[in-house]
């Protein structure tokens, strides 16, 4: 089985990398890109029976720094 974890900087935390991408898109002539936020997508291959609660614990302990980041878990 598989879980997908998406980690993003929390709203309100400045994302300099996303901002740089937004500027670059504008420089390429893509108008109307009003905001870019860049995060991480982590795919986990898991033994059958691994629970969402266990993946959440992985996020809390390592995959995300909850001081600055939020995360979303999708199972399967």
């Amino acid at each position, binding site marked *: 089985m598989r879980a997908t974890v998406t980690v993003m*900087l929390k709203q309100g*935390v*400045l994302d*300099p*990398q996303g*901002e*740089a991408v937004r500027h670059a898109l504008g420089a390429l002539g893509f108008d109307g890109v009003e905001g870019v936020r860049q995060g991480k997508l982590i795919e986990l291959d898991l033994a059958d029976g691994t629970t969402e609660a266990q993946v959440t614990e992985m996020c809390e*302990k*390592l*995959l995300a*720094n909850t*001081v*600055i980041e939020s995360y979303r878990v999708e199972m399967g």
Partner: protein
Amino acid sequence: MRAAVLVFPGSNCDRDLAVAFRNAGFDVEMVWHKDTDLPGGLDIVGVPGGFSYGDYLRCGAIAAQSPISGALKAHAARGGYVFGVCNGFQILTETRLLPGALLQNAGVKYICKTVTLRVETTDSAFTNAYAAGAEIDIPIAHHEGNYQADADTLARLRGEDRVAFRYLDAPNGSTDRIAGILSENRRVLGMMPHPERRAEPAHGGTDGAALFTSLSEALVNA
């Protein structure tokens, strides 16, 4: 006086930090990250700069989970002194020994230059040999030095006089130009600038040396 310097795969300021401790009179032992215990009778643990674990996932995140990390946290919980520089500061925030987090520099660039800091408190074992408000030149070399914390944390840091150093300019976007902070018991210091790289005349300046002599004076009298 005894100091330990932790060594992670990718640490690159560990020997510089050990030299600075030795020059201030400490016996120094290097401790590999796979060890689960620190040497006995330690006064202070140094967490050096570098790129532990290649900065994978987040700077300091993997190091914060390495085997030695449990012993580091226990040392701090016993009231032991801890000094984290650069990647060491990032590791200390990831272990939650210090609050807040270090994000990518606001300018998205790695910055390597000497900057001027103001010593914001002399009320710590790390800073008592500096004059209050002293301006000191110390090198920075980082890509993720942009200190951020929530409003409550910042209010506590300011209210409890726990901002140890501020940048005079704002090189990296840190909130309130914070360059280094102390723990609640004032025995854990994390800072992005590298005092160990400005501690003897051959470095081009010695403004960082007083941090190490502060420590040796404070600990010898402890």
